[in-house]
């Protein structure tokens, strides 16, 4: 834990949450994206519209859901629709400002893998697979990705492209006619990477407090580009930390269950 009293995961979640502008319509994956989106809703972005792929639209959970379709998501939603509807009318319908995804592997063009490590037919690790991610990545107007930064995750070549980012860079995403503009930031526990405006290669544009550029470079399997004007992420405020920890504490109590 850094000496100033917050963990790297907390910094990552806070940095991700800050990327969400108030009022944005967010299609949120489970795990870190869900934590960040709910933190945003509970701090600077109270009017953010959260949508989970279970068909819960405008949901306002008091604790983080363990699954994508926990009961509280339905109870606190403005509308609950079927799966064909959420994917056709809402995601494909072009109504999502921000898709928010996690990943097991990511490459330099922000393509992600959540399917297999190793060969598809003889995988060393069989991951859960695509879920809603390919179409979230393709159809949301903008995509954020959050995952922990290390060489097993930030790889030179994906074993499987589950969800398209900037494909092979440059204008290759537009050429493949993915509707949205793709990932605009990758938020890790070390810093923030954004695609180069022209090549679309992920570039380190911010490091979190106490993190060296070298550490981020070493945690990346490809030669990581670093922005000339490198920022240092603002550390979490007291409020951000308090709200996040309170959220996790409430969540832990709620998920203890009764088994």
């Amino acid at each position, binding site marked *: 834990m850094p000496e100033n009293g917050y963990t790297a995961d907390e910094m990552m979640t806070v940095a991700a949450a800050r990327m969400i502008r108030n009022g944005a319509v967010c299609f949120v994956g489970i795990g870190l994206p869900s934590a960040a989106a709910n933190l945003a809703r509970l701090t600077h972005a109270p009017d953010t519209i959260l949508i989970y792929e*279970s*068909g819960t639209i405008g949901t306002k959970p008091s604790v983080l859901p*363990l699954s994508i379709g926990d009961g509280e998501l339905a109870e606190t939603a403005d509308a609950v629709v079927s799966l064909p509807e959420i994917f056709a009318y809402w995601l*494909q319908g072009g109504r999502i400002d921000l898709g928010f995804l996690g990943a097991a592997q990511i490459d330099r063009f922000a393509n992600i893998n959540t399917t297999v490590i190793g060969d598809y037919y003889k995988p060393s690790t069989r991951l859960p697979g*695509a*879920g809603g991610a*390919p179409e979230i990545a393709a159809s949301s107007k903008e995509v954020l990705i959050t995952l922990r930064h290390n060489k097993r995750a930030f790889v030179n070549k994906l074993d499987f492209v589950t*969800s398209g980012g900037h494909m092979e860079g440059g204008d290759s995403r537009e050429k493949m006619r993915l509707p949205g503009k793709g990932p605009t930031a990758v938020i890790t526990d070390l810093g923030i990477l954004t695609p180069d405006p022209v090549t679309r290669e992920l570039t380190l544009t911010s490091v979190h407090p106490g993190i060296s550029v070298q550490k981020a470079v070493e945690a990346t399997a490809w030669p990581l580009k670093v922005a000339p004007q490198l920022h240092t992420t603002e550390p979490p405020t007291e409020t951000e930390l308090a709200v996040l920890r309170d959220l996790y504490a409430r969540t832990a109590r709620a998920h*203890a269950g009764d088994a």
Partner: protein
Amino acid sequence: MVRDGDVVALEGFTHLIPFAAGHEIIRQGRRNLSLIRMTPDLIYDQLIGAGCASKLTFSWGGNPGVGSLHRLRDAVEQGWPQPLLVEEHAHAGMAAAYAAGAAHLPFGILRGYLGTDLPKYNSNIKFIDCPFTGERLAAVPAIRPDVTVVHAQKADRRGNVLMWGVVGIQKEAVLAARRSIVTVEEIVDRLDAPPNAVVLPSWVVGAVAEVRGGAFPSYAQGYYPRNNAFYKQWDSISRERESFQSWIERHVLGTSDFDGFKQSLLEAATHA
């Protein structure tokens, strides 16, 4: 109503997962099932580990919020207890395929599978051109299970079924199937369904059975919450073949119904 070799869909998207019915399939020792389910979840981990399945069509196979489905992984990675053929989709494609099945169309279309490797490994993902704009769109064949099984909150005595909350793909899965089975939390005199509720009229439902708590450890909105603790415990129960086998033998194969299963779990917890 489920036979060896059938194409079977047990649906319920995180909610109302028909665990009781799934256990009954395990107890009956069904074999060579082609299982279909968007999110395999624990129930398919159990069916696969118990050797009921030879194929799985799915779009997200994990223990939600916890991690891997170890029995699914063991079947895919090691072929245990038998090799498992996998047909893999994204949620949007499976939702469109079920909707096409419910509509008795041969295929569904979506602006999907763009920029993903999935079509390289799944020949059931094709692309067609819009006859008006020329845009290339993905096409998936309709899902038409031999049997669909879902769990719902209520049925009335005539067999009309009401469900609410996260309704997922359940209605489509029933309407797409040749036969269907619905377990419910309770059978009531009157459904008192709100306007435009998700109701399956009795004449599209093959059989209705009351199984209180039949979605445990998933949840039934208005009846009981998701048992997140069990989902977490499953990670260790299922991680090794031996621990899985002793669990399934003791709690599922060693009991005669879902009440027996839950009683057996309770006894294990009390004596632990």
